[in-house]
């Protein structure tokens, strides 16, 4: 597994000063359409507490520099509030990209991976969330990671390629030679520098990250057929009913700037078809079904598929882990995957199992520096504890995410669960999920400010924010 590659000119820097004092603004929407309330706190970023041994410094002007003219821009698609209903109830309180996995906001992981790309000039986050939901985060992460990050808001749905295309002026501002496009809700090792090298050797318009999955599960994704020698994309089918290939699209791409010309072609062709529909009366009758608007262009069906076999797109296969983070259950699984990856890339982030004074640590565990864990507690494997949480005496935590300001009282047990911000878990209570990250009620999720009273048992249930459980529940959704 690749670690942090030493870049050509590196500097040893110790960032042990506390995070900058940033004003905390509660983001509360006055309108009724999106009732998520999220307060981003700089403690959500952990880098400033830790020492980095090496990283490349980008001069303050944030302009591209270096010996090579080959600048790279990365674009991360983050989605939007009404699109992400599968991530409820967690998305009722926080935009999905900012939900923490292994102690860091979800979108931190691809952004950190982008930092390993040589000559990275800029990172853009593109989504439908209101600007203010990302303003504080973007400013903080730019400072912390010393990478210019900017959030751009899509005004209307234009499809996965259309949105990317609509911001081409921003993307091309730095005259990049290559552009990465990543989906925020993808969990993987992001082998971006290796992908870039492969892409340069192929000489095509784009390279797609692919992974082999089981034949039975492949139909949930975009299936690709690639030439085994040249790695060229020969065929693409989105969620086919019959088996096409066990190689699937990971949602991570690198392009050369002529991708925009290809998208433009697709838009022009689509507009032509739309005109035809208006002219032909038979076509007009077809409008009973949803007609796709002219500038709605999907990357997979409208660009990759038609261009397959024309020596424009290639594939790069990853042998590491890959998952999609669509549901809270998957976020628990992916948090564990990233915690495991920390062993190789950032072992200093994991809790020290050999600390005799501290709690008993099993496996991969992340504990925020401001969290307090009683020495008699036993934590792990696969546990992530966020800022200001308090874990009491004799508590057992297994495979769970404990969010900010949670209090877990004495002798409680939490297994396969996500415990929401400011919640409290009573003495001797048991909060448990079966552990099936794909099932609807496979893990237990407690929303913000949920109180589980002493000795209460909560199993395979979802509890919305601001509830108090005074009796035990199983397999229930509590609104």
């Amino acid at each position, binding site marked *: 597994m690749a670690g942090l590659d030493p870049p050509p000119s590196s500097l040893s820097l110790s960032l042990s000063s506390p995070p900058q004092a940033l004003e905390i603004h509660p983001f*509360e929407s*006055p309108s*009724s359409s999106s009732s998520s309330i999220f307060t981003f706190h700089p403690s959500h970023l952990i880098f400033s507490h830790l020492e980095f041994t090496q990283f490349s410094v980008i001069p303050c002007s944030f302009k591209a520099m270096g010996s090579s003219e080959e600048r790279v821009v990365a674009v991360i698609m983050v989605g939007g509030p009404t699109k992400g*209903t599968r991530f*409820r109830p967690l998305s009722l309180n926080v935009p999905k990209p900012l939900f923490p996995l292994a102690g860091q906001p979800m979108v931190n992981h691809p952004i950190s991976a982008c930092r390993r790309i040589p000559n990275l000039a800029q990172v853009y986050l593109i989504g439908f969330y209101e600007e203010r939901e990302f303003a504080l985060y973007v400013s903080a992460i730019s400072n912390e990671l010393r990478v210019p990050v900017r959030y751009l808001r899509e005004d209307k749905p234009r499809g996965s390629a259309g949105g990317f295309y609509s911001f081409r002026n921003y993307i091309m501002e730095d005259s990049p030679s290559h552009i990465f496009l990543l989906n925020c809700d993808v969990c993987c090792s992001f082998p971006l520098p290796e992908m870039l090298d492969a892409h340069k050797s192929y000489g095509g318009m784009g390279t797609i990250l692919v992974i082999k999955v089981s034949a039975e599960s492949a139909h949930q994704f975009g299936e690709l057929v690639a030439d085994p020698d040249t790695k060229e994309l020969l065929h693409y089918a989105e969620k086919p009913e019959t088996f096409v290939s066990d190689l699937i699209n990971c949602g991570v791409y690198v392009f050369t700037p002529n991708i925009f010309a290809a998208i433009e072609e697709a838009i022009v062709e689509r507009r032509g078809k739309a005109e035809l529909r208006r002219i032909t009366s038979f076509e007009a009758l077809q409008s009973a079904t949803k007609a796709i608007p002219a500038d709605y262009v999907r990357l997979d069906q409208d660009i990759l598929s038609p261009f397959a076999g024309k020596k424009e797109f290639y594939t790069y296969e990853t042998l590491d882990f890959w998952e999609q983070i669509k549901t809270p259950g998957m976020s628990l699984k992916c948090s564990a995957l990233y915690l495991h990856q920390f062993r190789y890339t950032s072992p200093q982030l994991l809790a020290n199992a050999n600390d005799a004074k501290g709690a008993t640590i099993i496996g991969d565990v992340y504990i925020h520096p401001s969290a307090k864990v009683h020495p008699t507690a036993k934590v792990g494997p696969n546990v992530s504890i966020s800022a200001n949480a308090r874990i009491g005496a004799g508590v057992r935590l297994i495979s769970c995410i404990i969010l900010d300001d949670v209090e877990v009282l004495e002798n409680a047990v939490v297994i396969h669960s996500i415990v929401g911000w400011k919640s409290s878990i009573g003495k001797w209570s048991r909060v448990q999920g079966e552990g099936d990250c794909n099932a609807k009620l496979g893990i237990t999720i407690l929303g913000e400010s949920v109180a589980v009273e002493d000795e209460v048992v909560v199993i395979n249930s979802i509890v919305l924010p601001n509830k108090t459980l005074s009796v035990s529940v199983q397999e229930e959704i509590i*609104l």
Partner: protein
Amino acid sequence: MKALILVGGFGTRLRPLTLSVPKPLVDFANKPMILHQIEALRDVGVTEVVLAINYQPEVMLNFLKDFEAKLGIKITCSQETEPLGTAGPLALARDKLIDGSGEPFFVLNSDVISEYPFDELIKFHKSHGGEATIMVTKVDEPSKYGVVVMEEETGKVDRFVEKPKIFVGNKINAGIYLLNPSVLDRIELRPTSIEKEVFPQIAADKELFAMVLPGFWMDVGQPKDYITGLRLYLNSLRKRSPSKLASGAHIVGNVLVHETAVIGEGCLIGPDVAIGPGCVVESGVRLSRCTVMRGARVKKHSCISSSIIGWHSTVGQWARVENMTILGEDVHVCDEIYSNGGVVLPHKEIKSSILKPEIVM
């Protein structure tokens, strides 16, 4: 005169509707719930209403700005930083409630719907000269609640009994009070229960009186009671101002239709239906015992009963929606779908039938 309305917390029992707006702003009979109370208070001479809230103050304040001018009454907020129970908020709002005139002030629980006979309450309060008057209502199953034990002729309250195991009386606290300013001296600024700590003290001093609430009473804080409450409200409206109700060949029983709503041909609407502003009910639709909120569209040939259709939602053609289905804001039920008690969170599309009661997130 002044009034305090206890708005309190998160309204979790009225989810998914309260995921979009705070509970007092959820529409009931085509008007935000709290507006029913504020208008009744204004009509009896209250000049200032204080809302005791602890959740989403900025949403409430925006609402107030719109309505203060229209209603001709001053509305302010008193925000709890920690939940203060049912009496603490009165202490918090003390300065707003006492104006030196010595006049009593109203305290209302925001979930309560009734005819609000405030005139009679004022008369009774003045006649007995006691420190506090509470309204009580008769219920069939008093042991589910706190029972008020009182002398029938004078109304003097003897004591409160919480969820009594044997029958001690059938009158419960209706959540409407008229209190003299001196009551505020009995309440400390801390989480306090008015029923458990304050009223028993006043009763012991023989200063607490109860009046039986004439007309209907309902706590509409949860969907089942909301639907029952609408029936009671419309029934009362039939007696007081029948001209406000809809009439016509396509109307059965008590039906309230907002003037900006549009109803198509061949429909059968009622009984006990409220159709909100800007709603479109297409032709051939059957509606009974339901609420259709602002901006919702009910498509042709569909059938809705005992349900609540949230703001800007749509119910598809030939869909059948019944048995306590609650659609949150902007929920779209596709054509020909059946929903039996589906509780659907906002911004969802229902593409397959819900055969038994289920929460759809």
